[in-house]
């Protein structure tokens, strides 16, 4: 990733009544950037602005050193995959893929050859003459990808590329999509609200909340050091903002011992599996101990997730056996502790 020329450099500002988007994006050639965020955060608006389907109120879009924001959508060197694909219902799969090249002035026969080659690449050569309504969700997704790539775009835009698929198809399409994205030489921006899609497909994550970028970095960085509650929830961590002094971090009334030496305002994160629960105050007084009330109990994979209220709000993952042994029910008062070695503190 590092050292490659920046292909896309964008500052997107879209102002509408009751909504504002203001984000900066940089994407290198061959890089995949995922815009991750809750519904209504402005991700899709950002994508539409890049495509030219929504006008910019201010800012710029520069692709390969060329200004893009002054061009209408049809003159931008982009390919876009829409959430529900929007394959033209009156055209066959082949004609759908050939549509773009034809619009770029490629003769009919050549456009059809290009389209056939793309269908072959996404493994749908046998469906060339099929109408979109005859295709399954996964097949339609691949045709939509082929259609977007057949124009030879420099920037590929994908809006929730996997959201319309069922869980099983999703797994398969996700790994195929990853391969196709790896082969694509241009810049890719994809929008998703699914952290797993983002982690698997993207080289870099840009987390958008309320129209602004709240965090960006590699998936590993973002997953390890969440900076907002939304990101922490996505990656399944307990997250607190506190003040560090050495290996001690003050979070509200609780003082947590942490593994790293820090000073000043910090985040402290630890996984729910690192939290241990006791009915009575444990002996040997471990540090990082606080008294909490069970707020909720829910199934989480093979374990049970306990939501705790108290001086700090936390989630704890325990085994079903522990729930039975300790008789963990909502309203119960328990002691919670977390080992210092399982916490992670980083500057905020």
């Amino acid at each position, binding site marked *: 990733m590092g050292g490659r020329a920046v292909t896309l450099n964008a500052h997107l500002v879209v102002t509408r009544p009751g909504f504002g988007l203001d984000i900066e994006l940089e994407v290198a050639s061959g890089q995949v950037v995922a815009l991750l965020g809750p519904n209504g955060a402005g991700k899709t608006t950002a994508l539409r602005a890049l495509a030219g389907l929504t006008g910019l109120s201010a800012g710029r879009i520069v692709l390969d050193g060329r200004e893009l924001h002054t061009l209408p*959508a*049809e003159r*931008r060197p982009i390919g876009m995959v829409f959430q529900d694909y929007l394959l033209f219902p*009156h055209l066959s799969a082949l004609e759908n893929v050939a549509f773009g090249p034809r*619009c770029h002035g490629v003769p009919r026969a050549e456009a059809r050859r290009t389209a056939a080659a793309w269908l072959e690449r996404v493994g749908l050569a046998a469906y060339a003459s099929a109408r979109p309504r005859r295709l399954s969700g996964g097949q339609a997704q691949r045709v939509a990808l082929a*259609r977007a790539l057949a124009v030879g775009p420099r920037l590929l835009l994908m809006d929730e590329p996997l959201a319309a698929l069922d869980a099983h198809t999703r797994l398969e399409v996700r790994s195929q999509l990853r391969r196709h994205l790896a082969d694509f030489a241009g810049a890719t921006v994809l929008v998703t609200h699914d952290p797993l899609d983002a982690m698997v497909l993207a080289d870099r994550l840009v987390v958008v909340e309320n129209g602004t970028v709240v965090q960006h970095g590699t998936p590993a960085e973002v997953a390890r050091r969440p900076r907002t509650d939304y990101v922490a929830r996505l990656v399944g961590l307990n997250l607190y903002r506190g003040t560090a002094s050495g290996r001690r971090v003050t979070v509200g009334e609780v003082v947590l011992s942490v593994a790293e030496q820090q000073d000043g305002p910090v985040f402290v994160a630890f996984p729910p599996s690192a939290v241990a629960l006791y009915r009575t105050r444990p002996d040997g007084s471990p540090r990082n101990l606080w008294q909490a009330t069970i707020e909720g109990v829910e199934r989480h994979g093979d374990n049970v997730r306990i939501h705790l209220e108290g001086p700090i709000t936390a989630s704890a993952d325990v085994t079903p056996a522990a729930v039975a042994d300790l008789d963990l029910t909502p309203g119960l008062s328990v002691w919670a502790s977390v080992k210092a070695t399982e916490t992670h503190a980083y500057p905020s």
Partner: protein
Amino acid sequence: MRGEPGRSSAGVTGRPPWVLVLPALVGIAFLTLPLAGLLVRAPWSSLPRRLAEPQVLEALRLSLVTATVATLVCLLLGVPLAWLLARVTFPGRRLVRALITVPLVLPPVVGGVALLLVLGRRGLAGRWLEETFGVTLPFTTAGVVVAEAFVAMPFLVISVEGALRAADPRFEEAAATLGASRWVVFRRVTLPLITPGVIAGAVLCWARALGEFGATITFAGNFPGRTQTMPLAVYLALETEPEAAIVLSLVLLAVSVIILAGLRDRWVGGP
């Protein structure tokens, strides 16, 4: 409802109430009895002879030709007009939409008078047309087409605009991201998507043009072979020879029903 298990509404919603069924039956009778009357009173024995009369064939040919040409004119002007109303925001759009539906509520005779005032030999545009191109429209076959198109075009515009509004504009956005100009988007995406609506509108438009009477007789007159269409022939025959009027009406009815039924099954409505 019978014979459709699972879709029968009787089990869930009960019997259809008489308050609705009775007026509906009266409505059916009201609309079909006059047609039945035509069939009952038709002079079946002399029918073949009367049908072969050159004046009947001439009026029928003229009606079919002018209604078809008028429909083509409406398509040529009305589809772009509907597109403009549905897809382009411009000041006064609501006013334009209101104005183009005026011929729908205007008595056709008034429409004919208005056409005479504008396109007549001494009319605003008519004089210019005659002086510049030597073209006169009133009391010609072309005038029949103009009168029919004037009355029928709102049907097409309204139908096509509805289809355009119902069509998902995001298909057009997808086409734009693939490099299609607005004209290409219209030709290769929008138009194919709204084809059923365009055909339905054209059929309505054609049927309205075929039955046009008031504007035609006012603007184009009643000259056999040139401007005397079927409805005009029916009206004229009624005064002199009622049996002939019935025959002409039957022919008009048969042609309309055959063509509309044929198109309806293929294009319009249906489950």
